[in-house]
């Protein structure tokens, strides 16, 4: 990779790139108070609500902030934005970055509380982030506790065209392909928004499917297995057939699990097709045309030869979307993509694929 990064302190291959997954953090509970309506604002105070940081991403865990990107907590929006600009947007010359806010709105058991805080959060994102940095785009946070409310929120926020996708957590109440969630996909499709499924959990079930692990490391590890099970659900439940223009982006999933997973799924589909007869083509074809994965973490070794083989196993230059996963600690230095990705692939991954995936990016914003 480094031989591509000629040109001194500003590595060039990523100029104009779209960063499809950067994290922004609600500094503390009070940040959202001005955006809540009166009742919920007072509830927050009366009941002494705390910051809804999710156990999926404890902010002090080393893996969740690259050491040179770590800010003193709680980091204000200003400081976070400054760091994003200096370390990524300006440094590499990105044309846009899509922010995902993983504030734990979806974890609350109360649907109404989830809805009110999701609303406040989206308004906060628009006002405090998008208004202050023209290169930023965002995902709509939805109360997954209630898909009807989630669909409402999508339609409400989608009128702001700086919101370019719908954000869901990979582990919900039930598998994401279930018809229960379809109002969300209907609204997303109607608004022309991809659904971005991000690592994270509503914690309705233990993350492993075999009980609660002792270490956060396994919680984080389990996200990748969760993406596999949820992708199976989306495919076998027929979401892609029912919503023929819907696209799904898997964010912060790791990439290298995909080929063997698809080999297995195609194999089982051959034998169990008649159980879900609406799935008419091999699952791998559905995934190639409709599903995209962000590139950090990539979960590959340092050896570029292995990475080349893996990309061959994936078999398509169109499936990957460039992402830094800022400020999470996924890579060091300028290794935004693993060695072994060719310049031609970088061009696809960093620009062409994001533009094709997020129609709203092309609306005059990205030069």
């Amino acid at each position, binding site marked *: 990779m480094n031989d591509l990064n000629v040109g001194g302190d500003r590595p060039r291959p990523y100029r104009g790139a779209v960063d499809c997954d950067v994290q922004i953090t609600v500094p503390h509970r009070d940040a959202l108070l001005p955006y809540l309506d009166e009742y919920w604002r007072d509830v927050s105070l009366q009941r002494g609500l705390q910051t809804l940081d999710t156990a999926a991403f404890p902010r002090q865990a080393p893996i969740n902030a690259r050491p040179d990107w770590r800010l003193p907590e709680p980091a204000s929006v200003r400081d976070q934005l400054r760091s994003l600009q200096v370390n990524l947007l300006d440094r590499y010359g990105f044309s846009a970055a899509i922010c995902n806010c993983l504030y734990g709105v979806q974890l609350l058991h109360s649907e109404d509380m989830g809805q009110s805080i999701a609303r406040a959060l989206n308004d906060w994102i628009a006002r405090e982030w998008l208004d202050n940095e023209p290169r930023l785009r965002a995902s709509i946070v939805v109360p997954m506790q209630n898909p009807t409310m989630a669909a409402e929120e999508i339609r409400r926020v989608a009128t702001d065209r700086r919101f370019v996708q719908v954000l869901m957590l990979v582990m919900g109440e039930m598998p994401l392909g279930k018809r229960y969630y379809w109002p969300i996909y209907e609204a997303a499709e109607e608004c022309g928004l991809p659904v971005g499924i991000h690592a994270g959990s509503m914690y309705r079930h233990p993350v492993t*499917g075999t009980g609660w692990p002792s270490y*956060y*490391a396994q919680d984080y*590890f389990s996200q990748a297995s969760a993406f596999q099970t949820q992708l*199976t659900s989306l495919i076998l439940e027929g979401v892609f057939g029912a919503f023929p223009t819907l696209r799904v982006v898997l964010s912060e999933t790791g990439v*290298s699990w995909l080929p063997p997973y698809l080999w*297995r799924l195609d194999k089982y589909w051959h034998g169990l097709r008649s159980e879900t007869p609406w799935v008419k083509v091999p699952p791998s074809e559905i995934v190639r045309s409709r599903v995209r994965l962000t590139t950090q973490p990539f979960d590959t070794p340092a050896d570029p030869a292995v990475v080349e083989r893996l990309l061959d196993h994936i078999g398509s230059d169109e499936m990957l979307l460039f992402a830094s996963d800022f400020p999470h600690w996924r890579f060091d230095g300028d290794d935004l993509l693993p060695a072994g990705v060719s310049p031609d692939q970088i061009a696809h991954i960093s620009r062409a694929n994001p533009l094709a995936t997020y129609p709203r990016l092309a609306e005059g914003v990205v030069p």
Partner: protein
Amino acid sequence: MEKDIFSRLAPRWRTHIATVGMLARQGFTQEMQYPKGQPMAVRRDAFPPGGGMPGSDLDFMRAQHLDPNNVQFGVLIPLGAAQSLQNIDLSVALCTAINDWQVEEWTSREPRLRGSIVAAYQDPQAAVAEIHRLAGKRDFVQVSLLSRLPNPIGHRSFWPIYAAAAEVGLPIGVHAFGNGGWAITGGGWPSYYGEDMMSHAQTSQSALASLVLEGVFERFPTLRVALIEGGLGWLPSLRWRLDRIWERSRDELAHLPRPPSEYIRESVWLTSQPIEEPANRQHIAEVIDWIGWDRVLFASDYPHWDFDDPQRAMPLPLSRERRDRFFLKNALDLYGIPHG
């Protein structure tokens, strides 16, 4: 088969089964909540002509599988719910009955076959006693556990079992399936049998991550584990991911002085079935290159429907050495069977 086993139980347990049944952390008394894709998930041609369940008739197994496929060494894995029952004492009793049945009906009559010690993991002390009762016999070559348990398999409550297995020098075979009681995905219960089947690869991944991260291999360095029936293609990705997480989590994982991939490379074997089938078959060879050809074991899963035929499961030109390793030698080495 069931009769063969139940007849070995004390009257108390025969009555219990006849009246209450065998409840196993799932909703039905007989059917599974994901009805299988084929009756009892078996090959339709595996019912013995003389009656009984597939896999219950040694002569038929010889004629249908062992002889035509030239099986020189086969490991039996008795599944069934015995290990997952809610009634712990019944579990213990059934496991003992199944183990004795393996010897009397199978391993003592067919030298090519060896058994697996099934042990009631809910009662580690009883499991340990069962391991010690049978360890030493030539009939048994591994201790069998399931991937889906009420706690992740690396959990400390199971460590006495690992200590005993390491002490007697038997590998642990972790077979996919089981009823841990939790939804098979971290995001709840899926709708279809196809999803349930697919998810076994993911629960095998969870099981392996758990064994490594909870420190089982660090604590029991001589313990060997075979992961069974979860496929194998996912292992390289898992190893890369775990190593990266470990590098970033040295404080939390201070009990692991070495990167996860090293424990896995040393202590873990994988069986092939159900083998992934990429369109370009060379890809599976590349994946096994990354795993290590000395760590993969052929498994047929006979008589189940997702059986892999030894003649066809690896449709690749392999060097003689790789072929021998994959189909036989790795297994003989792991299970301690002398060979030339």
